[in-house]
């Protein structure tokens, strides 16, 4: 099941308010930030995973995706810019 990261009503980023142990049903309540990786869209998470699995080679990723190197590098630059904005 896909983890929602934005409020379906107002589109604001969602936070974690409850965690539950499946074994003993202990529940922890609070207001936790989602980790940065989970704040990204599924496509962006997939991109990072592919980059990791390709040993950090943009060239290899481009080959697997059937695109050119600059196209893949541009996609990565856009993501780097987005993550920098999220962390600043």
């Amino acid at each position, binding site marked *: 099941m896909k983890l929602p990261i934005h409020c379906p009503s107002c589109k604001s980023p969602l936070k974690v308010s409850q965690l539950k142990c499946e074994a003993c049903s202990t529940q922890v309540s609070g207001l936790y930030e989602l980790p940065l990786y989970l704040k990204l869209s599924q496509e962006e998470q997939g991109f990072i995973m592919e980059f990791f699995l390709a040993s950090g080679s943009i060239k290899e990723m*481009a*080959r697997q995706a*059937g*695109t*050119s*190197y*600059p*196209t893949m*590098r*541009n996609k990565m*630059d856009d993501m780097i810019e987005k993550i920098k904005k999220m962390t600043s």
Partner: protein
Amino acid sequence: MSKNWKTVFNPFERYSEKSLAVAGIITLLLSIILFWWAGQTNDGIYHVSPKADLSLVGAITEAVVYTLLVCALLSGLGKAINPKTRIIDILNATMIHRIPLTLGILILQLPFIKAAMDKILQAVKSNHLESLSGTTIWISTVVSLLMLVFFVCAIVLLLNGFRTAVHVRKAIHYVLFAATLIIAEVIYRGLLYPNLLHFLK
């Protein structure tokens, strides 16, 4: 726009630099042979004139000089906009964008078009434009429009190649791209081509 048409106008998004380089070099070689065979000279990067005595060495030199000039200027601009720009991507775009122009020169060699163009040239020389037939004027109009379409296609290809290589996102970068092409044309036409003519004599 369908994916196929997108690939036609922006092959730089999809194909590897090796495939593009091979296609670019083949285009350059075909262009050299075509210009030499047809006796046409590139007196501007985007301007062609008849030159019956053009040698093969002359055709090669012209093609290499305008390709390197456009590539050098666009690479400089690309590096200034985005330091990650690779020269090979700009060089591929520079070589591949000549495909429509080469096709245009090939079409100009069709006998009936060549005959119509010769008639127009003679009429202009003798100052008897009224002697031109309706068919000749129609052919020249259609051919001119076709050449314009080829020219636009070439510029679109170069722009897409540059955009992909540099990751252009601001309007000012498109303006700088256009300015760079104009500067390249001025340098080639005003400085390099006259020296090439002198050198190749």
